[in-house]
């Protein structure tokens, strides 16, 4: 555990050894390897010596194979892309009058745009990393019980919950739309669904959980999922007054 933490910040840097060092963290994917090669060789991205880069790329693939590293399909796809570009480069191009035109024809360009796009997001990731460092260096510690139920908020009992559920079912039966057998939802899926909703909203109303229910089965599954979340102490149910709408919110993790 401790070791992991000690290693993590530095292993991200590509390790510059004698040219045959492979770090999977550094070369996340084929685009990362290409960017690394381009930077190391100080190559002009708009004029990539494709034969040389392809050769080096394939060398790395060989090294990884020798090391028994399981190569994902994208590594081989990139290899074939490079070889394809290389072969297209060998085909003599007819001279165009307009140099702009020739530009568009360059078989390397699509790859270049892909590399630039990738570098762009690597930079964005770097920015997030810096921000994370700063955030990791600050603390905020509210008194643990500060928001514990203010006076007018009452915790909801299981009976309130059952009553609210029967109310929802009653209303559903009143409208009695046709019960269409939709895709069967499981309690597990519903739990994930509720968790996800709570990521997007701080609180959700009990009734809104059932707003999209078209069958009684769906409602029951939803209700069971909610009970499960309560049991696991993941959510907290509150209402402003007895008989008022029940509000569901995430339980704060006790740090």
């Amino acid at each position: 555990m401790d070791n992991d933490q000690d290693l993590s910040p530095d292993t991200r840097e590509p390790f510059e050894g004698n040219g045959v060092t492979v770090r999977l963290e550094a070369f996340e994917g084929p685009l990362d390897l290409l960017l690394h090669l381009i930077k190391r060789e100080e190559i002009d991205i708009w004029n990539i010596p494709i034969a040389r880069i392809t050769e080096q790329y394939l060398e790395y693939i060989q090294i990884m194979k020798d090391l028994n590293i399981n190569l994902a399909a994208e590594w081989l796809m990139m290899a074939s892309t490079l070889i394809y570009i290389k072969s297209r480069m060998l085909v003599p191009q007819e001279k165009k009058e307009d140099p702009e035109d020739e530009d568009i024809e360059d078989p390397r360009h699509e790859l270049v745009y892909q590399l630039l796009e990738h570098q762009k997001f690597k930079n964005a990731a770097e920015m997030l990393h810096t921000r994370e460092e700063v955030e990791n260096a600050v603390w905020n510690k509210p008194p643990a019980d500060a928001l514990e139920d203010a006076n007018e908020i009452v915790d909801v009992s299981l009976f309130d919950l059952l009553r609210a559920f029967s109310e929802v079912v009653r209303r559903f039966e009143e409208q009695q739309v046709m019960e269409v057998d939709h895709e069967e939802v499981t309690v597990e899926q519903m739990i994930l669904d509720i968790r996800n909703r709570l990521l997007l909203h701080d609180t959700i109303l009990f009734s809104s959980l059932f707003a999209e229910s078209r069958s009684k089965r769906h409602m029951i599954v939803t209700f069971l999922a909610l009970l499960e979340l309560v049991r696991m102490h993941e959510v907290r149910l509150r209402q402003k007054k007895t008989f008022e709408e029940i509000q569901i919110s995430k339980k704060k993790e006790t740090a």
Partner: protein
Amino acid sequence: METTEIQAVMEAIIYVAEEPVKPEQFREVFPDETMETLEQALKAMVEAFNARPGGMAIREVAGGFRMTTRPEHHEQIRTYLKTRPNAKLSMAALETLAVVAYKQPVTLAEILAIRGKKSSSALHTLLEKNMVAIVGRKQVVGRPILYGTSKEFLIHFGLKSLKDLPTLEEFAQLANEQL
């Protein structure tokens, strides 16, 4: 109510709050004051608070205000708390997160296209850490899941809102200089 008193209450509320306090939330506390008055009072209070050379700062995060220690004191605080820095997100997770943040709502296939590699495990980590949430489904064949960043994301990276992120053009420029 006197502005100084309003400001004192605001400071206290930001202190006790678990989540960043949104300006609108002060409206519930001061129903007689206009939003404009409250916002002005808040702004002045935050500025004055942060101008003093104290150990705490009020920072704007995820659309609200929260009180935290200052980053420059982290070493001493860690020594006192006897803690190590939290486990950080891996570079793969950060890259995936960057794509989600800038391209949201985005599908797994779209992330793959930009990163040039499978990102499902990185995305899984982000979902687990609540940085990313499912925001819907794309109305195309197969109805793939669309992902977006959560409020937790803003808090984790100390962002006021998504607009607080530097523009992608800035990173594009940087990329052009690097390559």
